C-alpha cells in the first residue's frame, strides 16, 4: 500500500533551496521515555527534525514523553496543534502512532525503529504512516569483525542498557562479526557480555547510570577485554572513562560518530570507530519528501547499501589498523550490500 499518487500533484511547491524562507508546513516529533538528550536515537531523530526546521524553513514542534501513558496524549496534542507530519521515536510509540494514523487520515505519520503490526503480530501498513527501520546489525557486524581484528588480548566485550531489540540488535551483529573473524582467521577471539544464542548478557538495567557503565567496563578490562562496545546511550561515557584509565583499550561508539561528539572530545582518541545509525538523515529525508508532497508510506530501511547505517571513519586510528583488516571489512561491507552476505538478528524488524 503505497501513498496515493494524487497527493503529490496537489501539494504546494517547496523548492530544494528553502533556507530561511518560511514554508507553511509543520513537522512534529515525540520522544519515548529517553527524551531528546538521550545521546541515542531520540537525540539523533531530534537532530534530523531541527535540521529540517533550519534548512527547509518549516515549523517544528516537539514533545518529550516521560512514561508510556503520555504517548497517546502527546500524539493528540500534536494533532490539535495542526501538525502535518508526526514522527514517533521508538517501538514503544507504535500503538500511539498507529491510532493517530487511523484517526487522522489527512495527517502523515512516521515511526522510528518499528513497523506496524496487528494484535496477532501480522504486519500491517497504512497509507499515511511510514516506518523508519534500520538494519543496524549490518554495521555492527563490521564493527565486530574490526574489533576482533584489532584486539590484542583476544577478548572483546559489549553491554547494553536494557534488553530492548534496538539495543540487542547491535550486540547480535557485533557477536556475529567476531565469529566471522574467528572463522576467517582460525582465531578464538571471545565476546564477553553477550550470548546471541541465549539472547542474554550484560545489562546495566537503565540508560542513566554512568558509574555502573564505568565499573562494568573496568571488569571487562580486568577480564582481558580490550575493545568494548557500550550500547546504552549516555552510559557509554562511563566506558570511555574506564578505558582512558587502562592501557590499549578501545571503544566502539554507537548511533552516531562518537569521535565528532563534543562530549567525547577528551577521549575521542580511544574511539576506534562507531556503529552509525543515521536516524537524523532518515528523518530529514522523510520530512523533506513530505514537504515536497512526496510522502510515501513504504517503509524506509536504513542499510549499508543506502547509507542508513554505516561504520564511522577510523579517524585517529587511520593507519594504525592493519590495512588487510580494513580491506577485509570493506569486502564484507560490499558482500552485505550485494546481498551475498545476510546478517541476521532476531531483533531486526522483518520487512517484506
Amino acid at each position, binding site marked *: 500500500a503505497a501513498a496515493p499518487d494524487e497527493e503529490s500533484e496537489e501539494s504546494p511547491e517547496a523548492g530544494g533551496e528553502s533556507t530561511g524562507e518560511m514554508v507553511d508546513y509543520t513537522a512534529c516529533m515525540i520522544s519515548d521515555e529517553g*527524551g*531528546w*538528550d538521550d*545521546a541515542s536515537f531520540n537525540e539523533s531523530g531530534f537532530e534530523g527534525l531541527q535540521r529540517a526546521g533550519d534548512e527547509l524553513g518549516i515549523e517544528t514542534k516537539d514533545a518529550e514523553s516521560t512514561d508510556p501513558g503520555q504517548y497517546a496524549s502527546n500524539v493528540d496534542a500534536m494533532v490539535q496543534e495542526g501538525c502535518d507530519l508526526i514522527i514517533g521515536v521508538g517501538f514503544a510509540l507504535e500503538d500511539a502512532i498507529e491510532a493517530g494514523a487511523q484517526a487522522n487520515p489527512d495527517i502523515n505519520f512516521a515511526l522510528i525503529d518499528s513497523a506496524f503490526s496487528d494484535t496477532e503480530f501480522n504486519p500491517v501498513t497504512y497509507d499515511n504512516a511510514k516506518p523508519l527501520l534500520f538494519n543496524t546489525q549490518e554495521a555492527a557486524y563490521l564493527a565486530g569483525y574490526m574489533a576482533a581484528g584489532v584486539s590484542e588480548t583476544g577478548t572483546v*566485550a559489549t*553491554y547494553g542498557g536494557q*534488553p530492548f531489540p534496538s539495543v540487542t540488535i547491535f550486540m547480535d551483529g557485533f557477536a556475529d562479526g567476531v565469529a566471522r573473524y574467528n572463522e576467517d582467521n582460525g582465531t578464538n577471539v*571471545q565476546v*564477553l*557480555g553477550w*550470548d546471541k544464542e*541465549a539472547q*542474554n*548478557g*550484560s*545489562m546495566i*538495567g*537503565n540508560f*542513566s*547510570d*554512568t*558509574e*555502573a557503565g*564505568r*565499573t*562494568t567496563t*573496568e*571488569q*571487562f578490562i*580486568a*577480564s582481558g577485554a580490550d575493545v568494548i562496545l557500550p550500547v546504552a546511550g*549516555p*552510559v557509554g*561515557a*562511563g566506558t570511555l*572513562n*574506564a578505558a582512558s*584509565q587502562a*592501557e590499549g583499550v578501545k571503544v566502539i561508539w554507537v548511533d552516531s560518530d562518537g569521535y565528532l561528539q*563534543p*562530549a567525547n*572530545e*577528551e577521549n575521542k582518541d580511544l574511539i576506534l570507530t562507531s556503529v552509525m545509525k543515521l536516524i537524523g538523515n532518515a528523518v530529514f529525508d522523510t520530512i523533506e519528501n513530505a514537504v515536497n508532497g512526496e510522502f510515501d508510506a513504504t517503509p524506509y530501511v536504513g542499510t549499508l547499501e543506502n547509507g542508513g547505517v554505516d561504520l564511522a571513519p577510523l579517524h585517529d586510528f587511520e593507519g594504525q589498523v592493519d590495512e588487510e583488516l580494513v580491506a577485509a571489512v570493506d569486502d564484507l561491507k560490499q558482500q552485505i550490500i550485494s546481498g551475498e552476505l545476510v546478517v541476521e538478528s532476531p531483533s531486526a524488524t522483518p520487512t517484506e
Partner: protein
Amino acid sequence: MSTQTTTLDAPGAQLVQQRIAWRTPVIYLVVGALAFVFFGLLTSADEVTRFTVSTSRDFVTISPFAVPSKLVGLVLSVAALGLAGWATYLTRERRKVPTWVPITFGGLVLLAFLVWVMAGNGNALPLTLLLTGALVLSAPLVFGALAGLLCERSGIINIAIEGQLLAGAFLAVVVASITGNPYAGLVAAPVAGALVGGVLVMFAVRYWVDQIIVGVVLNVLVIGVTNYLFSTVLTQNPQALNNPPRLPTLPIPVLSQIPVIGPVLFNHSLVIYLMYAAVAVLQVMVFRSRWGLRMRSVGEHPKAADTVGIKVNLTRVKNTVLGGAVAGLGGAALVAAGLAFTKELTSGKGYIALAAMILGRWSPKGALAAALLFGFADSLRQVLGNLGSPVPSQFLSMLPYLATIFAVAGLVGRVRPPAAEGKPYVK
C-alpha cells in the same frame, strides 16, 4: 534490675536462663546445608573455576589460577557447615557466638557460591575487582545513608536523599569542569546537598509540611531543575561545563601494596577515604558526643529535649543541613571518576540509601554494612552478567534487591526508628 527500692537487696535468684534464640543457628545450618548440596554435591566433577586476583597495576601480582570446582565447593561448604555446627553448639551452651563467626561463615558460603557459579566458565573471575566494585558502588549509598540518619536521628525524615545526591553530583560536575579542579567539585557538592536539605527542613520545621511530601517533591524538583539545566546549559558547551577532571587516585603508602586488601581498600581517590572517615567519626560522634546526644534526644522525645533547654527546631535545622551536605558528597562520589553529568544519573540510589539506613538501624557502621551488602550484590551481578551466566539478565539485576530483602527479613528483623521522626515539634 538492681534498682528496685532501697529496701530490696539485689535480685538475681529468679533470673532463669536466657531463652535460647534458635533463629540464627538454624539459618546458618540451612544455608550451610544448601551450600553443601548445591555448591558441592551438584557441581560436576571435571569442571574448574578460574580466578584472577590482581590487576596489572597492582604492586604484587598474582597470576590467574584455576581450582577444581567440585572439590573446592565441597571443602568450602563443609567448612561452613562446621562453623554452623559450632555456632549451634555455642548457642545451646548459651555461650556468645563471636562476631567473626558470621563474617567467616558468610565469606565461605559466598566463595562456594562463586566457585559454583563460575564452574566451567571459560573466563576467570576478577576477585579483586569484584570487591573494589562493591566498595565503589556502595560509596554513594554510604553517604546517602549517613545523610538519612543524621536527619532522622534529629527527627526529620529525609526522603530527599535522591535529590541531594543528584544536586551534589550536578554541582560537583559543573564546578569541577569550570575550575578544572576536581577538588573544587568535591567542595561544591556538599553545598548543593545542603541547599536541598535546607529547603526540606525549612518546610518541615517552619511550615509543618509533611516531611515525606517535601522529600518526594524535592526529588521531583531537583530532577526537573537539573534536567532543565542539563538540556539548556550543559549540552550547549559540554567541553567547558560538563567535562570534569577525574579525582586523582591516592594510593596509601605501604597499605595499598598488601595483596588483595591493598587495591581493594587503600587505592582510591580522596572521596572514598572521606567515606571511611565519615563513618568512623560519625559512629563516635553520634553515640558519644554532646552533639550526638542532643541530636538523638530531639529525634526521640523533642518535648523532653525542650524541657532541658535544647532548641529543638534549631537542632533539626542544623542536622538536616549537615545531612544534606553529606549526601551531596555522595553525589560527588558518584561522579568522582570524572564522569560527565547525565539526566537522572542517580537512578534511584537515594531510595536504596534510605533502605540501607534503616537496614543499618540508623547507625553509621550499620549503614556502611548495609550499603556494602548492596554494593557487593550489585558488583557481583555485573561480573556475572559480563562473564556470561545462564541466568537471564533481569534476574541478575534483581540480585541486590533480593539480597536486601533477605537481609532485613532474615537477619535484622524488627528495627526501631527514632520515636519522633516525621512529627513537627509544636508546643
